[in-house]
């Protein structure tokens, strides 16, 4: 993991001092709310329905055990004993007091964390594959590049007041687990024929009111040129992105207006003009950062572990968990483990202080002190020896963290919705709870197979409903919560936009509708065909008929 040097420390500490000063000026009345609002937002502090909400960055989803312990401590001391992991690999505290937030930021700074640029019209926390550095299918670890981007984008003098927020994601694996095509900039790390490392650069993806899948503007950008090329993309956007209408201000609209080719041309021209300026880091710096992400030294072990097989034979839930929640590691005899934060009937993405502490301890014990957060709102232990799985699972299961549903129907992404969010039209969490309770049967879930349900409480799409195999969008229909059903989206390498199936439903009706959709799939699927493939083959008609037929 990256470790701060004195300069990184100086920067975040200066930021805490600055914010403490701003909070004091606000409390004394020197600053009005109008003046203070943009300042607090740039430190991740929102006002939600019930209280302030503090969004803390987890850079590219990587956490140390100690950092996780600090999050637990903050949840216990300054909040109400829990935190919420988000679809942007961040963590949110729902009840901090304004007067406490400078202290919270100091607690974070002490463990090399911050809330900088977790809100506002700036470059947000860069996200990446939750299995980075562990996954068997990656070209290289994407995190050194994410760290480079983190540093470059932090307090950027020119790009801190963009037309709108700006999100960058990187993936390095064949399977896109970072939804790069849905980001303002998506980067796919790859190797060219000459064996050099670089990026395919995608721009103009985004969700929200107008979902758009990003377009490739460069097939191969040498890795050494990453920052100067980013700067060129951002300059074109900062100058020409629309500022007259909040809903048309994202880069996706500019890319549509100019056309991807023209956007590429302008970027290329600007990049040629600046690529020799001191923007890209010297090779020594790239190497310095990369060294922090050197793979942990893991013993090569056998992939056949009798204890695992034995327990799997005796215990169906353990077998399901091994199958669904663990995945191939670079080092034989190891796996990465997804700790599901989606207990059936529970709140997706929430973890208590005790659970956070436990995960920290387990990371120390079994995973080299490393933890990841996924955009699917789960936690990951990236480097676990297979032989430790039985003990690990038993401990997790006893703490309510043993759900074996990673990637299955009940591994639902849901935004906070109207239970917390001031922008919401409808609640998201109770819908997730109702669905996971309805499908609370591991055998049935395993039979259904991979199926991603994503729920947003309003058109802002924080719950990624456009990218759900089944998407659910909460709307306000004459003061009542109403839910639209969308089908056929994907956030992976085969990215696609989900389409609305028909009229919306109430809370009860939407759960029934999901069940009907699943029934059509089970009836129609061909051998080994997953839900999305069946939907793509059949189109919406049979689903529509099953859901609305009786009308």
């Amino acid at each position, binding site marked *: 993991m990256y470790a701060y040097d004195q300069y990184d420390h100086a920067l975040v500490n200066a930021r805490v001092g600055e914010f403490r000063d701003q909070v004091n000026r*606000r*409390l*004394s*009345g020197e600053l009005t*709310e109008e003046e203070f609002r943009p300042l607090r937002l740039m430190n991740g502090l929102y*006002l939600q*329905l*019930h*209280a*302030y909400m503090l969004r803390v960055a987890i850079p590219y989803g990587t956490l140390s055990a100690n950092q996780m312990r600090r999050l637990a401590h903050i949840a216990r001391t300054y909040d*109400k004993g829990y935190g919420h992991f988000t679809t942007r690999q961040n963590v949110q505290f*729902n*009840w*901090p*007091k*304004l*007067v406490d937030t400078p202290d919270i930021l100091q607690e974070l700074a002490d463990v090399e964390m911050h809330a900088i640029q977790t809100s506002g019209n700036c470059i947000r926390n860069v996200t990446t594959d939750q299995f980075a550095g562990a996954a068997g299918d990656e070209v290289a670890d994407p995190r050194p590049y994410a760290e480079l981007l983190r540093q470059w984008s932090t307090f950027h003098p020119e790009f801190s007041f963009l037309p709108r927020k700006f999100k960058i994601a990187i993936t390095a694996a064949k399977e896109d687990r970072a939804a790069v095509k849905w980001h303002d900039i998506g980067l796919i790390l790859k190797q060219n024929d000459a064996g050099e490392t670089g990026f395919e650069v995608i721009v103009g993806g985004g969700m929200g009111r107008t979902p758009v899948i990003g377009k490739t503007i460069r097939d191969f950008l040498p890795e050494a040129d990453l920052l100067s090329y980013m700067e060129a993309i951002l300059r074109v956007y900062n100058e020409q992105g629309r500022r007259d209408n909040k809903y048309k201000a994202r880069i996706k609209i500019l890319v549509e207006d100019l056309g991807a080719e023209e956007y590429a041309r302008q970027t290329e021209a600007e990049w040629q003009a600046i690529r020799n300026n001191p923007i890209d880091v010297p090779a020594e710096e790239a190497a310095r950062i990369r060294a922090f992400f050197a793979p942990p030294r893991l013993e090569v072990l056998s992939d056949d572990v009798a204890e695992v097989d034995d327990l799997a034979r005796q215990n169906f839930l353990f077998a399901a968990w091994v199958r669904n929640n663990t995945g191939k590691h670079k080092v034989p005899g190891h796996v990465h483990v997804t700790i599901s934060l989606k207990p059936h009937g529970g*709140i997706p993405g929430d973890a208590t202080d005790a659970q956070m502490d436990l995960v920290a301890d387990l990371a120390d014990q079994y995973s080299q002190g490393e933890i990841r957060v996924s955009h699917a709102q789960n936690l990951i232990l990236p480097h676990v020896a297979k032989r430790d799985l039985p003990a690990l699972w038993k401990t997790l299961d006893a703490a309510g963290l043993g759900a074996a549903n990673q990637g299955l129907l009940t591994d639902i992404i849901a935004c906070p919705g*109207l*239970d*917390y969010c001031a922008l*919401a039209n409808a*609640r998201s*969490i*109770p819908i997730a*709870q109702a669905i996971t309770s309805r499908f609370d049967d591991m055998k049935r879930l395993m039979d259904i197979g991979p199926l991603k349900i994503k729920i947003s409480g309003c058109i802002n799409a924080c719950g990624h409903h456009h990218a759900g195999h089944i998407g659910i969008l909460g709307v306000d229909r004459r*003061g*009542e*919560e109403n839910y639209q059903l969308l089908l056929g989206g994907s956030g992976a390498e085969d990215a696609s936009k989900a389409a609305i199936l028909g009229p919306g439903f109430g809370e009860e009706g939407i759960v029934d509708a999901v069940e009907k959709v699943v029934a059509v799939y089970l009836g129609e699927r061909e051998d080994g065909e997953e839900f999305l493939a069946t939907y793509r083959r059949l189109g919406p008609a049979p689903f529509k008929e099953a859901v609305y037929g009786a009308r």
Partner: protein
Amino acid sequence: MAKKLSGPQMVIANRLDDGRVVFLDRAGGWSVTPANAAVADDEDAIEALANVAAASVAANKVLSVEVIEATTDENGAPWPAHIKFAMQAKGPSVRADLGYQVALNWEN
């Protein structure tokens, strides 16, 4: 939400220092209990409430002030009519252990 309001109205806000949801009460102060909320029926009275609230914003006591439609709860006490504000009055529906709904550990 520039929708025109009608009927009895009350004022909801968040306290500046801790963000907690409060209601403008009948003494012109801010109460965490919706039952204490001042409810106004006619235009002049509503405007008077809005003015008190605005003064409170200017004095940096509260923020996010909204005049909202009021109804009554099962005991006949004031209660926000719209679901969003009712949610604020109660606390998250998915955490019955938190918020006003348990009249709670959040030292007032």
